[in-house]
């Protein structure tokens, strides 16, 4: 899946109270802190087997990070590896290598980037060699491809695999039957497998401690994401959003590093609100906020900065995105619950964005447009991703119909540079911004005409 901008985690054998950031970072510098966390995690992965640590791999949606920490796993997230490789312009070759090996040009490029990386000796995004995972934690949440992805890795590397089937919210709700099904799988299948592979006995109190830590970070993340309700928005909830969700969606949720990161970040953002500042972009402070958008779909990673620039150059800020909910929907109230740890892991998985049905996804977008006072919806439709993309054109029409706000559609891919056409996207965006202007003019003309 689609994920945020980073990876995994902790110090060897993280006890609940153990993990401390390696060095005191400057309060203002959440970006620096995140970079250190990411690189630290890649290093942890690289040395894991040397220091006798087992390695797990899992996906961003339905990522059971707190649980995996209970078994001291070094934690890898293949989607994140792929997108990191995409951002570093390394994924194109990996994808082509995988296609040469017989993988179809039609299927998700995350899978091919991952397999291509493994084929080429598992050199990770930071240049360190990543280990072959000891266990594939197949949290089958919100994406069909996940299942095949880990079957493919298992076939090639003979990794132990443990499946957690998370039912889809077909009728828009989480039933007790669904929760019980997931909890039973956790208890009777996944936890025993993780105990066996890691050699560590499961301690539910340890899980509770991590979850308490998660909640703190979750509170702060929600405050950060919702800060975009301000005018101007102090953040970009899509391009900037991928940095904000990074630690939460990957190997850090439940760690003290994450808690610290989110509290630092929240402080920074609240300061920006106080100063009435807009978002920071790769080129510094964004200029005047002209358009407020909601986005649906993951971003493109191979031309991430060029893509973002097309927005901020024109004064467009994304105030809310569905993508920043792929690894968990927290802004409608869900929090990990240390009093009901396994049920809460189940509900977390069941509630991830791509596990929501179509009417729920449309409701969410309409709500965002309303609550964040957005000018409209932009869909970035990803060729790789049927989970997100199949049906997005209906979504577009429904949202337009319900909100009366204009919507636009661009197409790209996650990590396959062959599918990013900057010129086309730019044209499309420019006409979209014009459309918003026209709508505004028409909107302000109406009452005048009435008099």
């Amino acid at each position, binding site marked *: 899946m689609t994920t945020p901008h980073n990876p995994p985690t902790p110090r060897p054998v993280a006890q609940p109270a153990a993990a401390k950031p390696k060095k005191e970072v400057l309060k203002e510098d959440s970006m620096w802190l995140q970079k250190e966390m990411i690189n630290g995690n890649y290093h942890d992965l690289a040395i894991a087997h040397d220091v006798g640590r087992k390695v797990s791999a899992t996906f961003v949606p339905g990522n059971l990070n707190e649980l995996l920490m209970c078994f001291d796993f070094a934690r890898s997230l293949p989607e994140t590896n792929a997108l990191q490789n995409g951002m570093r312009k390394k994924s194109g070759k990996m994808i082509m290598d995988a296609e040469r090996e017989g993988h179809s040009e039609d299927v998700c490029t995350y899978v091919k980037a991952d397999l291509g990386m493994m084929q080429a000796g598992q050199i990770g995004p930071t240049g360190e060699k990543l280990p072959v995972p000891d266990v594939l934690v197949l949290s089958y949440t919100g994406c069909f491809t996940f299942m095949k992805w880990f079957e493919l890795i298992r076939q090639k590397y003979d990794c132990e695999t443990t499946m957690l089937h998370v039912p*889809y919210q077909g009728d828009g709700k989480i039933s007790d039957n669904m929760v019980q099904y997931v909890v039973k799988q956790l208890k009777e299948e996944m936890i025993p497998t993780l105990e066996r592979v890691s050699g560590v006995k499961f301690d539910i109190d340890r899980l509770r401690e991590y979850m308490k830590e998660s909640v703190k970070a979750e509170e702060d993340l929600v405050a950060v994401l919702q800060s975009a309700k301000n005018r101007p928005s102090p953040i970009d909830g899509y391009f900037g959003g991928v940095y904000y969700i990074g630690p939460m969606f990957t190997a850090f949720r439940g760690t003290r590093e994450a808690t610290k990161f989110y509290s630092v970040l929240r402080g920074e953002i609240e300061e920006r609100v106080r100063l009435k500042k807009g978002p920071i972009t790769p080129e510094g402070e964004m200029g005047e906020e002209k358009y407020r958008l909601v986005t649906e779909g993951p971003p493109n990673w191979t031309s991430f900065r060029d893509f973002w620039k097309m927005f901020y150059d024109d004064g467009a800020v994304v105030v809310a995105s569905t993508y920043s909910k792929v690894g968990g929907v927290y802004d409608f109230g869900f929090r990990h619950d240390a009093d009901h740890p396994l049920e809460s892991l189940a509900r977390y998985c069941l509630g991830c964005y791509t596990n929501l049905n179509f009417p729920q996804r449309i409701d969410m977008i309409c709500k965002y447009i309303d609550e964040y006072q957005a000018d409209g919806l932009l869909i970035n439709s990803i060729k790789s991703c049927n989970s997100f993309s199949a049906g997005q054109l209906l979504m577009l029409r429904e949202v337009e119909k319900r909100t009366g706000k204009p919507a636009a559609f661009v197409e790209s891919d996650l990590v396959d540079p062959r599918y990013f056409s900057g010129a086309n996207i730019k044209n499309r965006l420019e006409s979209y911004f014009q459309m918003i202007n026209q709508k505004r003019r028409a909107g302000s003309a109406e009452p005048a005409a009435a008099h």
Partner: protein
Amino acid sequence: MPLKEVVERCQALFEDLHFNAVRDWKAAQPGRKAIGFMPIYVPREIIHAAGMLPVGIFGGGDQIEVIQGDAYYQSYICRIPRSTIELGVTGRLDSLDGMLFPSICDVIRNLSGMWQIMFKDKYVRYFDVPQNFKDAIGGEYYVHEMEILRDDLAKLAGREVTDDDLRNSIKVYNENRRAVRDLYRYRSQKPWQAPTSEVYLVMRAGMVLPPEEHTRLVREYIAAAEAESRPKRDNARVVLTGSFCEQPPLGLIKSIEMAGCYIVDDDFHLVTRWHLDDVEVDGNPLWNLSKGFLHRSADTPSKYTERREDKGKFVVDSVRKSGAEGVVFAAASFCDPALLERPMLLEILDKHGIPYTAFKFAENTGQMAPIREQAGTFADSIKLWSAA
């Protein structure tokens, strides 16, 4: 009934994208209802037990021009959802009182929600099946899901769906499965007598006919085919796999046969052969359906393979059982389940020394020449190997 008539009847049912057979069935008795379902599998027994007609919807094939459906999908998504939407928005599916969307892939999954939005007056359900195969885990979950379906359909039918109704329907479908197994066995023994271009139509008729009637039709076809005298050719015997959802056009199946292949097993209309043997009749019917699903059902790329060593086993076994000499892997373009499975399956076929060829199609593929050529070359090479 003579063979020609049986086949013509099936052909007419296949070509009728207004589903008049369903309309007629409903008109024959007031209050009757029909429930559509998409590939791969739903427990049709529950629909039948509610007194309703289960109707398999496999897209529009190459017989309708998709005009509106294309406005719903990007170019990189397979054809079946767009032609299914076309069928829906043009009123061709009006005879259906509801639709079930099984958990086969994210396209059909999302289509379930689209259907909820687009056809608000119909019963629409995403039908999830377990990927955990233990009775106490996946079984419990699945029985519960089936109970929901049973209750929903009971409400729609305005009457209870009793355990006895279900047992009776299990019996009816066991009969149908037996007939279908006989047909598949017959074709695998005498593929020159029962070519797949016909068998396909006979099976597809089962997607719109009541099971009792389809069982009779299958038996009639076997008898009529056996009564014909048809020339036996020196064709290569192949298993065709990968076409479990979007269907290749009939012309493509004919092309493969004309190119020198006898298709002796396939994964079309898997719903009819999902249960590998009879589902237990006595006892709790939903648990019996669940046990059949969990322990004795077909394999397909949408189903999780629990153990690495079992990957591809179903296809390899099918090759062995049907005495096939090779595998044709025919997948719909952009079909995630099939195309993600493909490299694994082909590697396993390699390991077993089973020759294969692979290509992609779309339900409206018009150009048969390249496929005919590929299938022809494949058949020739098999013949050469077996001669060597």
